């Protein structure tokens, strides 16, 4: 296993935790837990009280947030020991997108 390690303390450090502002989108769906804002009967949609359809609305919202993070962080380098191997993978992913 783990035969080759990244050389140099800098690279090791940068590989530890990666900051990406897009990841903050992952916090948005948590808003659905603030029930005092949502716990109402009116207005109804298809007969569903506001509380229920607003909770349902967070399903697509959650998908959009996670999907955006997935798309926007796709080009983060994956870790490989061989630089050329890395670029091949990235080109593959780029081709799909």
């Amino acid at each position, binding site marked *: 296993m783990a035969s080759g390690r990244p050389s140099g303390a800098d690279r090791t450090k940068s590989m530890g935790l990666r900051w990406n502002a897009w990841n903050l989108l992952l916090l948005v769906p948590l808003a659905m837990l603030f029930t005092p804002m949502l716990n109402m009967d009116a207005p109804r949609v298809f007969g569903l009280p506001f*509380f229920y359809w607003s909770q349902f609305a967070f399903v697509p919202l959650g998908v959009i947030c996670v999907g955006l993070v997935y798309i926007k962080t796709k080009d983060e380098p994956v870790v490989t020991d061989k630089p050329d191997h890395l670029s091949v993978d990235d080109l593959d992913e780029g081709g799909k997108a």
Partner: protein
Amino acid sequence: MSLDNVQWTELIVFTALFLVVSVMGFVASRWKAGDTLEHLDEWGLGGRKFGSWITWFLVGGDLYTAYTFVAVPALIFGAGAMGFFALPYTVILYPIVFLPLLRMWSVSRVHGYVTPADFVKGRYGSRPLALIIAITGIVATMPYIALQLVGLEAVLRTMGLNGSGFLGHLPLFVGFLILAVYTYQAGLRAPALIAFVKDTLIYIVILVAVIYLPAKLGGWSTIFDKSAELLSAPGANGAPKGSTLLTPNNQLQYATLALGSALALFLYPHSLTGILASKGRNVIKRNMVALPAYSLLLGLLALLGYVALVSGAKPITNAATGRPDTNTIVPVLFDQQFSGWFAGIAFAAIGIGALVPAAIMSIAAANLWTRNIYKEYMRKDATPKQEAKQAKLASLVVKFGAVLFIVFVDPQFSIDLQLIGGVIILQTLPTVAIALYTRWFHIWGLVSGWIAGMAYGFWLLYQIPNPAAGKAHFGGSALTLDKLTFFGWEPFAGSKVQIYVGFVALLVNVVVAVLVTFLARKLRKPNGVDETSPADYHADEGDPRLKAVAAH
């Protein structure tokens, strides 16, 4: 056992579909087979090569269980809006676990970890810490498997197989025996293949049910108005049974239960099994985007609790316990509103929906037993072949244990049992999830926090009564804040606001872990050896650092 009440059409359709998946289960051992099944990577993780579609069906089939089909609508049927927590739970789940799961997959692939306890051992080099994580995982999974059986049995009893005593449980034994044998044979490949059938049936049934039934009963608006009226009737303790909107007292419970359950779900060993079986980080990412399709379904299904309430459906009295079993409410609804053959399909969906997660859970528990107890303490020199053999046997023992659970524990408490399991498994969060990011916590702190969280959580659970079921203790997971005491100090005396016990216990756990970590650092105690390197947490498929699958 009397066969007078048996619904023959339903039973025949159910049995036919059950037989189809049983055959699939046995054939599965040859599906995408590797060189050998005698390695945990193959038996326990399906060769670690599942792509996006298989993973979607597998993880979906694993997370959205018979519990989904039976217990969540039953909760809404009984109490109203509070039961809807299952929707936010499964919506916030994916954004929360998106990043940690990627790190877990990578580090596990580089080092060949099969279980969360494997990771803890590698990360901290501490055998006791890994052991308590393994034991917590096994103990928390057991009632979860039992819960799947409750779903299966609810269906069997609705179809008329409602005997008392041993005979009453006989159909369950038979179904589970078949499951046990093909899981033994094929490992994770069996539930992965069956999940395709299960999920397809489930989607068909739910879509038909949520379009057809409300229309038949006067539309959602009428259903909600009538439900509000019915739920306002006094329940066992004189207070209203529930409400279609949250009350000032249960809003905090709703939010903390959803959040706590979401934090807990991927700490369960079986959830992680599905993730570790996937072939790369992109598979996981795509699934985090696509899995909420099941959440939508779950939310719609939960609303069937109101439909059942308005339709006047009455839960079946369980002949084994002599009391009405609210878990039968959705099966009863289908039985009354659908023709026999479609009800049969619906029941098969629920029944097979119980088998898939039960198989994965028993595999995960067996992996924990084998990797972190058997190999660690009993046979250190066990070969991969012996490991696989041991895990197969353990999966049989685990399933048998779950059946005993059902026979001796009242199924009425299935959802509470699972919630107790949730409280337990949440206590591994600092050791498993936070450790993916930092080794700041000291082993001493993690162990102390775990002990404190477990002890406090159990003590709180002990104090919760359930008037509806006539229980004085272990009556649920909703704690009224006035019962919250810390060494005699009652910060919220008189408050009737409810909160999820697991959440409180986790807070206590983290606070203790932080304090003891400071202490251990002050005393300069050694903090174990970390065999992982920061780059391991970002490795992806194609990386030469990944450990070969099923390497001996």
